[in-house]
């Protein structure tokens, strides 16, 4: 396989293309599966939903592997993930406010949806080596990946061009993250959930989410325009990404 060494990316096989094709369906399906688990009062929902989240990660990692990328095409993901993890570690003493979401959004925006997903998922996997792996790891990986993926999708449609639209997107994404993780807590660990317990769980997370969302906007606004410009320069200078 000398083609991986030279300057063009080998074509993906059938399996990889299939995996890539079902990615959007998986993103929609997983939250629905979780809600169905809640609706039907499935026993052992915590285990089942965590297993589902692991399954949902498969198409993304499988299609990524099937691409057989050149070394320099995996580098932006490594650098951005390392930066994100370092950011999460540096800001660990400060409650709620983390640069994680901001950096994942910028990655998805500049390098594309798949890079966004993989960076988000790996950032949570690696940072949990320091913060502690747990049953939440697959869901954190999935949700952070989803945020990067969405940023990539919206970016490729030209919707995230302005400082403020990117900031607003980041603000909403932190709430999406909190919402999905809180819902998973309810589905997995609260039996006979009723309006009161659901409300309490969301309310307990609200202050945290709000602080996180404001923090993300503060991190995003200054870098929203300058970093994509810097990354585009590096991308064209070193021919990173799919060969044009």
């Amino acid at each position, binding site marked *: *396989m000398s083609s991986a060494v030279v300057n063009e990316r080998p074509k993906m096989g059938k399996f990889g293309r299939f995996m890539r094709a079902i990615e959007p369906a998986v993103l929609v399906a997983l939250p629905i599966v979780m809600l169905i688990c809640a609706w039907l009062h499935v026993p052992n929902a915590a285990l089942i939903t965590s297993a589902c989240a692991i399954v949902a990660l498969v198409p993304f990692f499988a299609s990524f592997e099937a691409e057989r990328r050149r070394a320099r095409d995996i580098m*932006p993901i*490594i*650098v951005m993930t*390392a*930066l994100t993890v370092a950011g999460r570690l540096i800001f660990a003493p400060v409650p709620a406010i983390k640069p994680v979401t901001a950096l994942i959004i910028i990655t998805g925006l500049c390098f594309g949806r798949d890079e966004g997903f993989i960076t988000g998922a790996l950032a949570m996997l690696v940072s949990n080596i320091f913060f502690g*792996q747990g049953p939440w790891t697959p869901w954190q990986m999935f949700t952070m990946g989803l945020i990067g993926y969405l940023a990539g999708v919206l970016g490729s449609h030209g919707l995230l061009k302005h400082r403020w639209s990117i900031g607003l997107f980041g603000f909403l994404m932190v709430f999406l993250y909190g919402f999905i993780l809180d819902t998973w807590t309810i589905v997995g660990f609260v039996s006979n959930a009723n309006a009161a*317990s659901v409300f309490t769980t969301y309310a307990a997370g609200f202050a945290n989410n709000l602080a996180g969302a404001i923090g993300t906007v503060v991190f995003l606004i200054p870098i929203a325009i300058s970093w994509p410009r810097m990354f585009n320069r*590096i991308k064209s200078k070193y021919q990173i990404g799919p060969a044009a």
Partner: protein
Amino acid sequence: MAKGLFATYHPAVCMLFFLTAICFTFCTQHPVYVALTCIMAGAYLVYLRGVRPFLRSLGMFIPMVLFVGILNSLFNSAGATSLWKWGPFSVTVEGMCYGLAVGGMLAAILLWFSCYNEVMTEDKFTYLFGRKLPTISLMVSMISRWIPRMVSRGHSVYDSQEALIGGYDQTKSGKMKRGLRMATVLTGLGMEDSVQTADSMCARGYGATSRTSYARFKWHTRERIVLGLLIVLLVVNVVLLVTGTGSFKFYPRVSAIVPLWGYLTYALMLGLPFLVELERFKR
């Protein structure tokens, strides 16, 4: 290297054990099962880390465990023995027992994951999954290398920025501006550095063939014995769980706990890290 003989076993055995322990813990809220898994996980973590670090990590879990336990006991109107009622809140004895069981279950899961973190180090994880996910596992280990590299690069960027332009603007906005500039420089520098790394990897033949790996772990007789034992215990416990040893009714009234032999097999399975220590007596 984690303490104890069990950590020296083949990663596949360790992985299967932790998967088993965590899945079983997830699966039942039977008070005896919950108590057993809590004790075993706690004992193993104490053995791995020592008492003081164990208490420290326990302190980190307690808020989450309490939250889930209280949530389950406060808003549960399914129980028969009501203690207190106010609007949507109703506290029943059964609800509190259930909250206690779920809290204990969560605590046990967290304890098992802590043990997993001690035993299943990154190299073992890479060894297990490196063949299936060559790019991803390579990336995970490269990321772990890049985090300290980023931090040390950050220090040198900070120093040179201070030497060139620092010290003038000590206001908050000035500091933030410098922080932002530092992050930008660090990211750009990291990206350009990484391309060098990539070129170096290419020059050494990255992607030329499929990934090879140096295997430190081998299957010995002891691995086969322990794996066999684990599988037997696993099957027995699954059968017991499905046939009803692990089921327990909290509502409308808490059912009685009867002593069963099944609990012993569960304890044996979760105590596997201690069982393998018996090997020491053979010598």
